[in-house]
């Protein structure tokens, strides 16, 4: 294939999935090496910092349980504050993982193999962080189980017509399926770690979770089938979870909340923020753990393109909301949006639009998309912007239909320590994951190598590998 366009700077076909001169063995070595190397001081330090921040979360929650939600900045029109903002923020982060692992799998986007493992891990940890917030927001935490429809002698049930209840189902289903999907994908790699284990403890623990995997033909057949089914089951979840989350707002009769574009707009925003978080994590970790050959510039660039697309979709939704608010001729709709952009929270609106709509526009340039520093900085901007988006939406409450009850919401130090602390929880889990599990799916990456092609002509003909995206179609 290399002879079709040898003189072009850029080939018509995409670059290979794995950079450098790798064979199957060197891939195993490179990825397992991260896990098998002795603990290094930087890792311990990072875990220490994350753990300390996490301790702040638990301390804040402890005080909240003791004192009640009065320690937060909630007031009368704004009955939902940072807790719902943080919940939606964290649930949204998770979506990129599911999109990468399930949707891109169904679309046969083979570049996903390098990033799906830790994007899925990110999903699970983000959903854990998300679930904390509605759980502690109920006030009387000892009654939190009332969120579940459990038959009881008081014949008391949650409101089945409330999207808040559907959230309980949607998010817990999402968590369960994501966890299963992640685990099924891990099984062959856990077996690899088991087989290479030097210590008894490692041998037994990896052995326990690798479920007796021996890499037999039958194992692979069942595995592929299970993986495919889970991908098909997880795909609707990418849409449904954030759709239900958007229903929390959109089924109401509040101007600024009730608008029909909310479901796909929330989903696009979730994927947008999720990819930003994947990049925030991937850019430093590929360097720290020497995974640059697997998470290549091509992967970074592809993710930046998705950020540009979803950021533009979110911008489209903002534009539609504004246009229809005016077009509807409803004075309340009009007021809600004017108040968002020019009211007391104008700075939040400005932060949202600049981070979510303006900042991704840099990615129109290939130079920017392939620049790691720019990518890292912009990914943080997007994270900030998407948090502000949920803040802006929630703060629509601060001026309700009755001007005498208008108020200004400001967070307290406990709001902040809880939110900051949730990052501690997230990073603690993530840092542990990087050290104890293979951060890149070993078996899947091998599957997209040119060597995995039954028609591969051997190392002597390795230049054919350049177009491995299509090589298996052309080799006959």
């Amino acid at each position, binding site marked *: 294939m290399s002879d*079709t366009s040898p003189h072009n700077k850029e080939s018509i076909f995409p670059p290979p999935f794995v950079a450098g001169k790798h064979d199957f063995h060197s891939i195993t070595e490179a990825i397992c090496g991260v896990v098998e190397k002795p603990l290094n001081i930087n890792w311990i330090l990072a875990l220490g910092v994350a753990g300390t921040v996490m301790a702040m979360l638990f301390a804040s929650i402890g005080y909240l349980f003791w004192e009640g939600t009065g320690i937060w900045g909630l007031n009368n029109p704004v009955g939902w504050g940072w807790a719902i903002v943080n919940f939606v923020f964290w649930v949204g982060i998770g979506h990129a993982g599911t999109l990468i692992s399930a949707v891109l799998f169904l679309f046969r986007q083979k570049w996903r193999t390098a990033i799906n493992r830790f994007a899925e891990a990110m999903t699970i940890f983000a959903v854990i962080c998300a679930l904390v917030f509605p759980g502690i927001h109920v006030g009387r935490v000892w009654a939190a189980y009332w969120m579940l429809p459990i038959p009881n002698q008081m014949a008391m049930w949650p409101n089945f017509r409330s999207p808040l209840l559907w959230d309980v189902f949607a998010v817990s289903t999402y968590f369960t399926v994501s966890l299963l999907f992640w685990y099924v994908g891990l099984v062959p790699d856990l077996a690899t770690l088991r087989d290479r284990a030097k210590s008894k403890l490692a041998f037994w623990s990896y052995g326990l979770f690798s479920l007796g995997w021996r890499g037999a033909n039958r194992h692979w057949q069942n595995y592929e089938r299970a993986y495919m089914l889970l991908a098909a089951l997880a795909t609707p979840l990418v849409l449904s979870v954030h759709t239900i989350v958007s229903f929390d707002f959109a089924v109401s009769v509040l101007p600024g909340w009730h608008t029909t574009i909310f479901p796909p707009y929330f989903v696009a925003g979730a994927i947008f923020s999720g990819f930003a978080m994947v990049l925030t994590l991937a850019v430093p970790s590929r360097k720290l753990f020497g995974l640059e050959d697997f998470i290549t510039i091509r992967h970074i660039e592809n993710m930046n393109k998705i950020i540009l697309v979803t950021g533009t979709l979110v911008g489209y939704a903002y534009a539609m909301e504004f246009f229809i608010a005016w077009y509807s001729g409803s004075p309340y709709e009009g007021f809600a949006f004017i108040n968002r952009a020019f009211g007391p929270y104008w700075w939040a609106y400005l932060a949202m639009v600049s981070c979510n709509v303006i900042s991704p526009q840099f990615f129109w340039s290939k130079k920017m998309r392939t620049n790691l520093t720019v990518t890292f900085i912009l990914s943080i901007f997007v994270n900030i912007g998407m948090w502000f988006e949920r803040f802006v939406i929630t703060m629509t409450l601060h001026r309700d239909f009755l001007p005498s009850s208008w108020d200004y919401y400001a967070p307290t130090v406990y709001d902040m320590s809880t939110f900051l602390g949730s990052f501690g929880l997230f990073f603690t889990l993530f840092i542990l994951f990087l050290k104890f599990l293979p951060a890149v799916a070993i078996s899947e990456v091998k599957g997209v190598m040119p060597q995995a092609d039954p028609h591969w002509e051997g190392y002597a003909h390795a230049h054919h590998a350049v177009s491995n*995206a299509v090589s298996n179609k*052309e080799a006959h």
Partner: protein
Amino acid sequence: MGHANTFNEDAKLPEAAAKRAQTIALACAVVGLGASFGGGLLGLFGGDAKELHHQFYFSWLTAFFFFTTLSLGGLFFTILHHLVRASWSTGLRRIAENLAMNIPLMAACALVLSMGFGDVYHWTHIDPAKDPIFAVKEPYLNVGFFTIRAVVFFALWAVLAFFFRKNSVAQDGAQSAESASAFNFKMRRLAPLSMLAFALSLTFFSFDWLMSLDPHWFSTMFGVYVFAGTVVALFATLILSVLWLTRNNAVSTDTLTIGVFHDAGKLMFGFTVFWTYITFSQYYLIWYANIPEETGWFMHRAQGGWEHVGLLIAVGHFILPFWTIMSRHVKRNRFMLGLVAGWMLFMHFVDLYFVIMPTHHHHLHLHWLDLTTFVGVGGVFLMGFLFWCKRDALVARKDPQLTASTGYDNV
């Protein structure tokens, strides 16, 4: 192996097949347009026939919009192909380009509506002083600005369609693989901005031509809703076109393989679900909130016989195709998938009918003009499509990615 010039097929539409199709298209156009214009003109004489005149414009709008979405779908597919640098769909590219080339024809069909514009769009004769809700949107919704937007949209789409097809056909004459890929790069460069322009223009086109039929009603989702239906109809059209071309040996099944066919089916399935998601969300949020200024549109369509059409759409546009094309066997069976594709086109028409016609008939009232305008505009559309199909090769023969497309199969 891997050389761009291994593709030796002529990929020309055989004369006999073209003649036969053109005769049918011409017959449809003549009979359909003749009957429709006859009916419409009869209405001018007033009396009992006056209703025919109104009916003509509403039926025309439905048929016009239906076939315009097929062209727009073709344009969307063309842009998307270059935007995501797909290789599997290279074999389908030219068909989509040919569909998009009908935009100028559809603009001509739009002109027919201008004569009965006031009959279709009631906001043309609302007095803003008496209608405070309309007074707000009057700066947007007035005949002058509407016309400007319509001209801009059709001009934009026509320019895009011409740009992509011109470069695509020019590539057919490329002497080397390098000069061929230069065209790919050129088209890829324009794809992102084209997609942005397409998204915005389709949104406001659907606001203008469909949503404003009820000038008080609004939904932020409406543009996405029309887009979703458009894409389903596009894949249905592509599938039927592939079937027709391969049956007539215009393109061999080695080029448009069962794998390509299968994947077009998967995408039709995917977008059917997407359409359902969008349509349901729009309905559901309005139903749940139950705010009078929004519910009117659905109330109107939930009575007078229209509720049966709504039910038909729920079953026919979602439940039936969902359970049918979910199966891999159906997607890989040319006859079965062709059948479902035809059905989806029919449902797309019903869907548009459900949006447009209740504005005119408070009670479900099928009219013979619905059929004749459809046949007439359809005949015109088909003639245009065949013209472009006959003109050049049916497959982008020199595209270096074609080898990836022809050997393509995903099981």
